[in-house]
Structures are given as structure tokens and as C-alpha cells.
């Protein structure tokens, strides 16, 4: 009984590992075709590279779930800049990892294009 289960699991393990390897190489291309064209902006690039793995932000096409969902957060660029620079809770400080210009860019990007016009 156990021997039969073990044999089946051995085959499943090899097949699953092979499938993962194939998906690691085939997956990015498959999804890239479905991705919307990214909007221009240095802030988006900084966000995707450094923040997207933890935060969801639909404008950046990211869906991280470790930190707050930024689609439902309304903060100004200065507040965001402060959080990015100093960190908060479990979020690390990015000061020294990102330049001042990058922190400023990403803060403006996260605040959104309507921030100044809507007076949030």
C-alpha cells in the first residue's frame, strides 16, 4: 500500500518539478502578452522594481499582498515620500537604497496623476 503510494508520488514529484521548470521559462512570455502597455514614467519603473512585490497598485499592474493595497490608500506625495524614506511597521526604509529623485518619482506615481488637481 505505502509502496504504491510512494511510487505514484515519485512520478508526481518528477512531473511537478519538470512542470515548474517549464513554467518558469514559459510563464513570463505568456503573461507579458496579456499585460497592458505600461504608462511612461520613472516612478512606475521604480515602483515595479522595488514596491510591487509587496503592494497592489493597479496602475502599476502589481498585486503584492504583503503590505497595504495602495489602490485603496489616499496619501499625498509628501506623506508617501516620508514613508518610503523612513519605512513604517514592517516596511523597510528605502533611504540609501533609492536616490532622492527616485523616492520623489515613486511618491508622485503612487499618489497618482489626479492628486494635485483633485486636491486630495
Amino acid at each position, binding site marked *: 500500500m505505502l509502496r504504491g503510494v*510512494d511510487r505514484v508520488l515519485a512520478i508526481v*514529484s518528477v512531473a511537478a518539478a519538470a512542470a*515548474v521548470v517549464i*513554467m518558469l521559462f514559459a*510563464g513570463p512570455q505568456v*503573461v507579458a502578452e496579456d499585460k497592458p502597455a505600461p504608462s511612461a514614467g520613472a516612478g512606475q519603473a521604480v515602483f515595479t522594481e522595488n514596491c510591487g512585490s509587496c503592494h497592489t497598485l493597479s496602475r*502599476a*499592474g502589481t*498585486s*503584492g499582498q504583503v503590505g497595504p493595497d495602495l489602490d485603496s490608500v489616499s496619501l499625498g506625495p509628501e506623506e508617501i515620500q516620508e514613508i518610503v524614506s523612513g519605512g513604517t511597521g514592517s516596511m523597510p526604509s528605502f533611504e540609501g537604497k533609492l536616490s532622492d529623485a527616485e523616492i520623489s518619482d515613486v511618491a508622485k506615481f503612487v499618489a497618482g496623476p489626479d492628486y494635485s488637481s483633485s486636491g486630495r
Partner: protein
Amino acid sequence: MEATVATRAAPTRLLVAAAAGAAVALALGVYGNVHDPSQELVFTLFFSTTISMKVWFATLSVAFAVVQVATALWMYGTLRVQAPDWTGGLHRISGKLAFLSTLPVAYHCLWSLGFQDTDTRVLVHSTLGCAFYGAFVAKVTIVRSRSLPGWALPVAGGLVFAVLVLAWYTSAVWFIGEQGWPDV
């Protein structure tokens, strides 16, 4: 004569196992570094979120690994109780289930997040994640090799277990500590 050949062959076999493991760990690290992280959620299986899937699968994997280590200790006589016949089967099955449980987690880590070094924890976790599969390959190679020293398999198994537990500690345990157990 045969004993001499076996003695000489053992270090070579151990080196082959270590080299195979190092190659796998390195390959995963390179992949995680060079490919463009998708930041996409691919699947959640039957869980509500990807992070929930990862925390639960990683924890499940450690649970199976504990069973594997316990049955190994039993078979080696460390528990001072005669191991029944089914211990070996349970040992192999729990090991395979532990390995299978890591795959959805590793896939998301590698494909969606890549090798990251945003802080010490993340760097340690990224390194351990790659090292786990290297240690796993080395252990499987040792299991399938003959005439190796008696300490080789327990050391390899212990290494795989230690790396898995540390990788779990720097991810799932950290997440649970920060945000509590995620809903299934």
C-alpha cells in the same frame, strides 16, 4: 581491493552530490536575478490569496518534513523504540509530500518576485530558498549512491531540513508574526 575502490569512490560521489546541489542552487539564484519578475499572481489553487497559499503550503511542507525527520530518527534507532515495517514507507512519502508542497511557493517566489535583497530578511530568505533545492538535489543524489560513509545521508537530510525550516521561518513565520495567520 574492492574496499579500497569504494573508499576512494566515496569522496568523489560526495563531491558529485555537492556539485549537483550547488549547480541547482546557483541556477535558481541566477534565474531569480536575471529574469524580469512578473509581479503577477499566477494561481492561488483553492486559497483565497496567493500569500495565504504560500504561508499554508510552506507550513504544510515543514510539517511533512518534521514527519520525515522523526521517521528517520526512528529508523536509525535514535528513538530507542523498534521502528515498524511501515516507517520506511512513511519516511519516503512524507519527504515527497514535503517537496511537492514547496513547489507552488517556490514557483511564485521565483517567477513573480525573483531574487531580492531589499533587506536582510528578504536576502536571507532568497538565498535559503535557492539553497533548499540545492540541498534537496544533493540529498537525493546521496540517497541513490552506494558505498558512501554512514554519516553522509543523515548530514544531507539534516541540512535539507534545516534550510527548509529557516526558509519557512524567514517568510511564513515572519508573515504570521506581522499579520497573523492568513485565511485559507
